[in-house]
């Protein structure tokens, strides 16, 4: 099972702060997962309409869309950061 947490406007568009899913078959990379979420329902379509604007952290480390999800239990999906 994979826990996905969402932040900022990704969370708002998804309507939930986190969810736990069974990693879908064929979703090997972070990019695959984002595409699957975008195709899953209307909320996902809104949140992930522009995948190039999505950043990801896998097990606490920032990763690119090509990163393999492997056995990770947690992934965070969010927009570019705007702190400071």
């Amino acid at each position: 099972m994979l826990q996905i947490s969402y932040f900022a406007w990704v969370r708002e568009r998804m309507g939930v702060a986190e969810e736990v899913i069974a990693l879908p078959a064929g979703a090997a990379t972070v990019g695959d997962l984002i595409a699957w979420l975008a195709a899953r329902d209307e909320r996902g379509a809104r949140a992930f309409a522009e995948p190039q604007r999505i950043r990801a952290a896998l097990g606490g480390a920032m990763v690119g869309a090509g990163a393999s999800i492997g056995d990770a239990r947690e992934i965070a999906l969010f927009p570019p950061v705007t702190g400071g």
Partner: protein
Amino acid sequence: MIRVAVQPAAIDVAGALAAHDAGGHGASASFIGRVRGDDGLTELFLDHHPVLTAGGLEELATQAAARWKLGALTLIHRIGAMAPGDTIVLVLASSPHRAEALAACEYLIDRLKTDVMLWKRESFADGRVSWVEQREGDHARAGRWM
């Protein structure tokens, strides 16, 4: 002495300064960022990650301490809802030498903008609410340190 904090409570600048300065350093540089009430802004909300935000700040502080000879480093970032005039972030960097204190302070505030998991949402008097977009200039500034 490195001190890093992510907190919903108001940042006590004078208290942080006193604690930071206890060592008596030759040169101290600081940066204070505050909420601006431009365009009728009524609230700034800062979203964060419960674990990775603090980890990102600690990582930045560690990098700065490795890069410059610092006597003390304080990095405090507020999260949650803030009003115009509130302090969002406080950076204090001290060193025997001014160039190192100034560079470390600038490095930390530049990298904070691009490397730490924080997201700003602005609410305005006319009802508009919008998430702040990352600016190209922030990446250009942060990139100077690579």
